[in-house]
């Protein structure tokens, strides 16, 4: 183990403005400040969310400074993408300012990789299949050598998008996840929905169309239950296929939809049946946060990543396949 590093991480890809501070080794979370934008109606409006982040940035930073001595910070990391441009730029601006003020190196990290690596450090998963599920993403991945391999992904909309759009059309508000989960728990009746798997890819747009058609014909609880059971079964099935194909016996879930209890329960059940391990961690770290950005900042710093301020333009469409996974052995202990 080398000298301990302290990294501040700033998250602002979508609805959450987060500042987290992490120290390593050994891994330790020093602070976790979050401010979450809630739209008055409809989904996330990018410029409204960015406005929220600008308004909350100063108080969030003050709160972080009250908990951690920023003179001890060695690295400043921010979520450089993928995400909503206007939101990303708020976090990037604050990170550049901190980097200059503290005279510490700047590291731009990938939001998806951050979700994955916070899951891995919290669970010590050394070689997992990763089910990455959020409002904008649905992917089954594996870190193979020095790159992430996407084994399967959605061919149309993301699982979180399916849930959010359905919830909105049903008048449940945003974000839809918690409400859909609560309503689903009140039913055990299944309505047949399209179960669409191709190889290790999934498709949800047909299911959304069908659910919309059934909105005034079936009770909402039954629809929520059917949505969860069908969509999550598809996700767990493709995760299992990936594990079987690679001969991997660990599974982690990363991303906001992982906060759904039923999805994690199914993952656990599947792993038990094949003598594998589903590695779970505290629910609050499935959601977007600054801690994961700080940890990924340390990972990338150790891999040699540094970002000049003048090159630090945000990357709203940054794909994870262009990012390096942590060095082998980092999660072995």
């Amino acid at each position, binding site marked *: 183990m080398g000298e301990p590093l302290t990294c501040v991480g700033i998250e602002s890809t979508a609805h959450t403005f987060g500042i987290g501070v992490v120290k390593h080794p050994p891994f330790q979370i020093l602070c976790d400040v979050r401010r979450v934008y809630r739209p008055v109606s409809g989904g996330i409006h990018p410029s409204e969310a960015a406005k929220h982040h600008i308004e909350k940035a100063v108080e969030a930073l003050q709160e972080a400074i009250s908990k951690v001595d920023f003179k001890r910070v060695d690295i400043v990391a921010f979520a450089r993408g993928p995400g909503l441009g206007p939101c990303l730029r708020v976090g990037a601006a604050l990170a550049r300012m901190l980097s200059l003020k503290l005279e510490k190196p700047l590291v731009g990290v990938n939001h998806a990789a951050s979700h994955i690596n916070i899951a891995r450090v919290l669970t010590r998963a050394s070689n997992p299949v990763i089910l990455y599920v*959020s409002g904008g993403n649905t992917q089954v991945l594996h870190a193979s050598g020095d790159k992430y391999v996407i084994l399967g992904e*959605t*061919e149309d909309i993301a699982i979180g998008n399916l849930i959010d759009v359905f919830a909105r059309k049903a008048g449940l508000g945003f974000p839809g996840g918690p409400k859909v989960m609560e309503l689903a728990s009140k039913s055990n009746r299944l309505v047949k929905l399209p179960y669409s798997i*191709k*190889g290790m890819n999934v498709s949800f747009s047909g299911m959304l169309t069908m659910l919309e058609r059934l909105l005034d014909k079936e009770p909402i609880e039954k629809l929520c239950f059917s949505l969860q059971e069908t969509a999550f079964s598809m996700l767990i099935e493709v995760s299992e296929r990936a594990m079987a194909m690679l001969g991997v016996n660990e599974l982690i879930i990363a991303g906001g939809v992982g906060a759904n209890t039923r999805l994690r329960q199914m993952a656990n059940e599947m792993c038990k049946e094949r003598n594998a391990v589903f590695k779970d961690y505290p629910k609050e770290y499935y959601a977007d946060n600054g801690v994961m950005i700080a940890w990924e900042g340390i990972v990338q710093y150790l891999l040699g990543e540094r970002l000049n301020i003048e090159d630090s333009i945000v990357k709203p*469409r940054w794909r994870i396949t262009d990012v390096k996974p942590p060095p082998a052995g980092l999660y072995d202990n």
Partner: protein
Amino acid sequence: MLNHLPQGCTIIRTLYQGAEAIVTLCEWMDMKVVVKTRVRKGYRIRELDEYIRRSRTIREASLLSLAKRAGVETPFIYHINPAEGWIIMSYVEGENLRNLQRSSIFPHLINRLGYIVGRLHSIGIVHGDLTPANVIVSNDRLTLIDFGLGEYSNEVEKKAEDIYTLVSSLSPLPNNEALVKLFLEGYKSSAGESAIKVEERIKEISKRGRYVEKELRH
């Protein structure tokens, strides 16, 4: 998993234990047969699990039989029980195409596979899980197995998705672009008129993964 075999089957060895099914080499009525059993998945609620296993079993058996009409080699079906999720079929001796990926004849075999998939698509069947692992090579004959995710369709989209699955599975290989080209040459020689549209659609699909990223929320 002792209870996944039909009565009267004596197990010789397990051929493959996949995520979805267990495939066993058995002796049955004095023949060497393959038994494919879709095992119950505890993570799915019973109703959904039974529906999925039953419908996939029936569909697979019927696709295996109908593919022969296009002159595509597939195992013969001897017996099927949808409720229990098993199919008894003939055993095809040979090498799995996945194990031949480093062989010098692999490009030739991929070209042949293209031709065979073209025939299959020409009668409106898509395989649904086209990977080298689902092709058995015996001498110079290719037999397609595992139609578990297959379906009847003449849609350009479904056919393109079918081929895209294969293209994806070839992507880790160093000469993947040449292989895809050979596959498509074989495909176009037998798939009929729709081949051009299918090829265009494949290009479109390959961009869609990125398209998803473009729409990213978080």
